[in-house]
């Protein structure tokens, strides 16, 4: 049961949040211009990293804001919390 530091509300229990998977997956700007394989990469493929993952959480029972989390998927330690649009922070697990 993680303790997640909502960038807006502060530390709250995991029960108030929902994880929405990998962050920083940009939607192709011109979907028609990409191949089926590239489109599938965007829609379906995920890095699923063992180690540091950058993922999106939403504080859905709180302020309803989405934000990004850098977490070590082995230790489940949260290494950084940052806002959407923020740069992927360099972290060490």
């Amino acid at each position, binding site marked *: 049961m993680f*303790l997640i530091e909502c960038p807006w509300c502060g530390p709250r*229990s995991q029960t108030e949040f929902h994880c929405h998977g990998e962050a920083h997956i940009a939607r192709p700007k011109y*979907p*028609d211009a990409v191949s089926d394989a590239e489109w599938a990469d965007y*829609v379906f493929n995920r890095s699923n990293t063992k180690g540091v993952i950058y993922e999106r959480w*939403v504080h859905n029972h709180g302020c*309803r*804001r989405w934000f990004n989390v850098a977490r070590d998927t082995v230790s489940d330690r949260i290494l950084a919390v940052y806002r959407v649009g923020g740069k992927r922070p360099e972290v060490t697990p």
Partner: protein
Amino acid sequence: MSQKFRLAEGGRIDRTRPVAFRFDGATLYGYAGDTLASALLANGVHLVGRSFKYHRPRGILSAGAEEPNALVQLREGARTEPNMRAPQVELFNGLVAESQNRWPSLRFDVWAVNGLFSRFLPAGFYYKTFMWPASRWMTYEKVIRNAAGLGKGPAEPDPDRYEHRNVWCDVLVAGGGPAGLMAALAAARSGARVIVADEQAEMGGSLLSDTTEIGGSPAADWVAAVFDELHATADVTVLPRTTVAGYYDHNYLTLLERVTDHLGAEPDGKTPRQRFWKVRAKQVVLATGAIERPLCFRDNDRPGVMLAGAVRNYVNRYAVLPGRRAVVFTNNDSAYGAAIDLARAGAAVKVVDLRREPAGDLIDAAESAGIEIMDGCAVTGVKGGKQVTGVTVRRLDEAGDEVAGGSRSMGCDLVAMSGGWNPTVHLFSQSRGKLRFDDGLAAFVPDRSFAAERSAGSCNGAMTLSACLKQGAEAGRSAASDAGFKAKAGSAAPKVDEPETGATRSVWVVPSGKPLGRGGKHFIDFQNDVTAADVHLAHREGYVSIEHLKRYTTTGMGTDQGKTSNVNALAIMAQLQGASVPEVGTTTFRPPYTPVGFGAIAGRNTAEFMDPARVTAMHDWHVEHGAVLEDVGQWKRPWYYPRDGELMRDAVNREVLAARNSVGVLDASTLGKIDIQGPDAARFLNMIYTNAWLKLPVGSCRYGLMLHEDGMVFDDGVTTRLGKNRFLMTTTTGGAANVLTWLEEWLQTEWPKMKVFCTSVTEQWATVAVCGPYARHVVGSLTEYDKLGPRDFEFMTMREMDVAGIPARVFRISFTGELAFEINVPRRYGAALWEAVWEAGQKYGITPYGTEAMHVLRAEKGFIIVGQDTDGTVTPMDLGMDWMVAKTKGDFIGRRSFAREDTARDDRKQLVGLFTEDPHQVLVEGAQLVEAVKPAPPMRMVGHVTSSYYSPNVGRSIALAMLIRGRARMGQTLFAPRLDGGAPLEVTVTDPMFYDRGGVRARG
């Protein structure tokens, strides 16, 4: 009140409060302050249970959580509980306990034949047999199942209450022994929010059974003083009878507090039986003590063979003498304490010490107490069945592998053994801390912490009281300081005088002079009947990984989770492999520390609180008018409103007919509603929906389909333009929350620059849908009729007006294909509006209709329900909704996926209508369609029925189906095979719109 083995004085029991209890039908007595185990021992009862596999007679091994043997069925009826550890059951008046896993009685257990055949039942025997004939396995299995299991589950629902409590604290201390109390004190004095929990009835831990002094007075006085100070300190919570059960990620811990279990009296209906604490701790101090290891010698499982520390506990804390003639068998100094205390209490005591020439204060003390010490010797066998009657003792060779010299028999009724101590590292390991093997202790101790946690006291390998106090004080101080508090002076550990102690000699399997497995058993895991020979067998067969060993032999898989067995098992495996213990490693410690009731974890979130039942403003009316309710997600919606004695089918037909021929009224409040505004709102909808939104006039409504990026439909609804930059979106009832999340996801993560705000207004509005040819009359009589004319108030538009004196938003939209007005009013007026419509409709025969009639009505029109007619594999084109997919507006979510091979192919399933050959036959929803019926499956399926009803308006049954190349099959005959063995039903493919194809009625 015989209590033959009760000492005349001492102990922490209350001799003024005798307590009567029953064990296996016999009435016995103990005192307040006893546990079931101490009271049984006071009465000379050693035989308490039967083991899992061999049904060997078993007694009480320990005085605590580690108990593998003395498991009883506690209480009767609805409150009965299996597998309760007798040493942890506090005695109360009227307590009823039964022994388990025996038939017909504990003394004469028929299943004990398993013991006779035990030679044929080594570890894993079932993997090797019961295979032939294959058909017999289910029979064998029944027998195996009946022989296994321990106690019995209750047959009735649990009558008790369970509460939860969420708390946050600066420092949580697990364990209230000297280390834990000292830590709590140090942390409390810094001003931190502190919780200290101990699973026992009293704080004090081992001090409750110890005879040492702290700071010059009895340890118990020190405990009392600390307890008082903690109690008096603000924001310090002291929790006795509370087990720290689980240590989860990010310092989240669960605690089980037994609030009334010890009282015996039935709970008063408001006090919880147990309270489950969910704690977020900034810092944790683990002070959980140590658990004594049994020695592994032949027939070490006989009742009367106990852990030495436990014996000490029974003597000192409970004033019980577990035996009058005791043999203390040890490999370390600690058991001398037990020997001395036993002797002082009047028992005849002999010590068998595996070590040669042990020396030190305790040995001296024992000798001066007149206790005979046989050094370099071992108990090599135990006599007696249902209780120990004697032991054989032999000298061991230098290495400890073989007996050397003759054997000496001694009569005794108690064997107190000590194989050393294992720090209780369970919680530490659960927190992902790394262990280290300490050769001196021959045990695993905490090494590197992972969480914000520190261990103190004997769980940290400190085996002297002074070290425990010192570590406790330091841990409390540093925990508080790491939580941001300054330590106050005066929290140093008090002084204690202690004997010097010597080293331990590890002999993992005590030889008996015979090969292992012959003539007696060396038990490791008492509960699961795992012996040293089983470990050898596992090794021989290649199950050498400690994890394989565990699973093959089931060591450590019982209710005690191997608290007394795991280290012995892995040490033996290490020896067999010629490896060191740390090389072999441990199995994984998992929560909980001791078993936790499911009811306690559920708390009060069961029965009606299991899941909220959401209701609309008109709910009470529906109930009063006899509505049968349907669960739609969390919502309770009227399904149909049967009149007296009416069957569902008749009620639904009546409702459906009324909605087409006169007027019907539906509570449509549950639909999701989202207010969307901002300069980019229309552009945003253009991306979210498949069709075009930029040019929708203000005041107009439009139907929309939403797709996921894979191109599949996931929600739909009507959206109305309230203003240039403002829309009101409706969603499906079940999809409301998901859709809002979906919109926010895109806005916040993909298009943060778009200026759009979304606000849920689902609950702001109560919605009354009035539908049918007289809808205008009914609504008109509540507002200005003239304003409702087909020209003044066009189909697919919205108006604000007062209805029945209530400010309302009225939509001319229709899910039934009938003339309809959907009136939205602030929720508080929902009931009033409904009543007003009801009154006004009386003269037109207004009929409330439920979700079933609504489904029929919309199916007559071929309108889909997302989630029923679609699953996650349906595109708009599959639904025949190509017209919903804008070709020119550019990109929208999901569009790119249409260009893929699969979505572009022409043999996809498409939405069609079906007519059964017999117009009265209603297809089962979910029925599959085939082109040709074969005498037996398999048959190739070409589609399935998604919706199916009897339609009184069409005058026959109708169905919707998803069918491969469906639109090209109009008029084709297909078959729907039945589950009940009846002949497959013949169906004809038709257009999915069965009524008013021109759409005249809705516009009228």
